[in-house]
């Protein structure tokens, strides 16, 4: 045949290659391929697990954040309530203090008024006594117009000075 083509040798080459191809694929290719596929599968599984864990972490984080937000709002509400209560307590205390102060002042004013009346009463009594004394003295001495005038002046001066002294008290 042209080009030294020999059918038997072609077939022998074919036989040789068939043996080689079968042997190589069974002995070398498939075990290595199997190992690579198994490793890839295990990596994919790990990746899926990691993704799942990340998802779980994300969920827990969101849950924590929502709880934190709820706690913060609860704290803020409690704080607001406490402030409100404190403010109302302070107001009540101030109000009661004011009322007490007003009562004390009213009582003091009342007492002062009463005292004033008492002083006035006693002043009137003393004035009456002075008048009576003066009248008695007038009646007992000789009554001249000059003397009477002088007596009245003396009486009035004494009465004024007593009144002024009492007022000072």
């Amino acid at each position, binding site marked *: 045949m042209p*080009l*030294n*083509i*020999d*059918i*038997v*040798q*072609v*077939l*022998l*080459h*074919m*036989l*040789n*290659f*068939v*043996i*080689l*191809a*079968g*042997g*190589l*694929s*069974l*002995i*070398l*290719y*498939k*075990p*290595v*391929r199997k*190992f*690579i596929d198994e*490793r890839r599968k*295990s990596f994919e599984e790990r990746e899926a697990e990691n993704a799942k864990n990340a998802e779980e972490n994300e969920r827990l984080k969101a849950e924590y954040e929502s709880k934190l937000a709820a706690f913060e709002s609860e704290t803020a509400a409690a704080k607001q309530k406490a402030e409100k209560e404190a403010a109302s307590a302070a107001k009540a205390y101030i109000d009661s203090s004011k009322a007490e102060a007003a009562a004390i002042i009213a009582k003091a004013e009342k007492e002062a008024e009463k005292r004033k009346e008492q002083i006035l009463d006693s002043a009137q009594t003393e004035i009456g006594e002075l008048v009576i004394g003066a009248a008695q003295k007038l009646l007992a001495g000789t009554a001249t117009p000059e003397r009477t005038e002088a007596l009245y002046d003396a009486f009035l001066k004494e009465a004024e000075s007593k009144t002024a002294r009492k007022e000072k008290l």
Partner: protein
Amino acid sequence: MNTKIKRIPGRTLFIIVWLALIVGLLAAIIILGLPGEKEESLREAMRDGVLHETNRIDLFGLEVNPGLISAFAVTAVLLLAALIIRIFVIPRFRTVPGKFQALLEKAVDLFSGMAKNNSPHRTGFVAAYIFSAGAYIFFGTLFELFGIQAVTTHGESVALPAPLADINGALAMGFISFFVILGAGLFANGPKGALRVLKDFSLPISMSFRLFGALLSGLLVTELVYYFSFLSFVVPVLVGVVFTLLHAVIQAYVLTTLVSIFYGEAVEPHEPKNKSGPALANASAETIDNKKEEE
């Protein structure tokens, strides 16, 4: 009717088909018998280097080209290496690979990726096939670098060439690849698939001669370099090694790429005849693709 069809596991089927192929090829070799006497005498050393007509080697009473001996040697070495790797290396594979493990995984991934890219359907078989073909072409081409000597029928010593520098080896590789593609088309799409592959009847010839031509051209360039005595120092070390490495890589890449592309075309699912509009036809094709992906 209650008929139970026992499904044969893929691995068992593969081994059965493999053994059947070996037995069939052996039978064909025995039936065809010894090659006829060649009375033609060749004088030119170059032509002999190309055609291996005078320097033949005796193989159990059968006169064969040195390329066939190279092919057997390469197969023996590769299978032995694979066996050693299988027994001593693969069981010790780690999740974080070492250098050698990374190299093996890279090689397997390279051919798997090529098969997936060029043939998205039924990638399993073609990936294993092109892995073996790639390894055979690559290491077979590098084999000639060792310059292993063999004794011819005339009692002369001859360096064993690359298996695919022999036209018989290149034809065998081309035809096997064609039969693989044809078989895959038949298996995936029935007779229509096979017919589609048969349309490219020139494929085995083109594949064979591409391989043969590429390796032959390398051989001729090397021969030319050796021919001039002033170039036969130092230069062959560089030229021989670099050219051989380039052939090994390029030819392994070209053949495996071509096989995976043609295989992909052969096993590509047929679109049903468009009776209800293009949208329905596309949807059906996608459904078939998805089902096969799931399988």
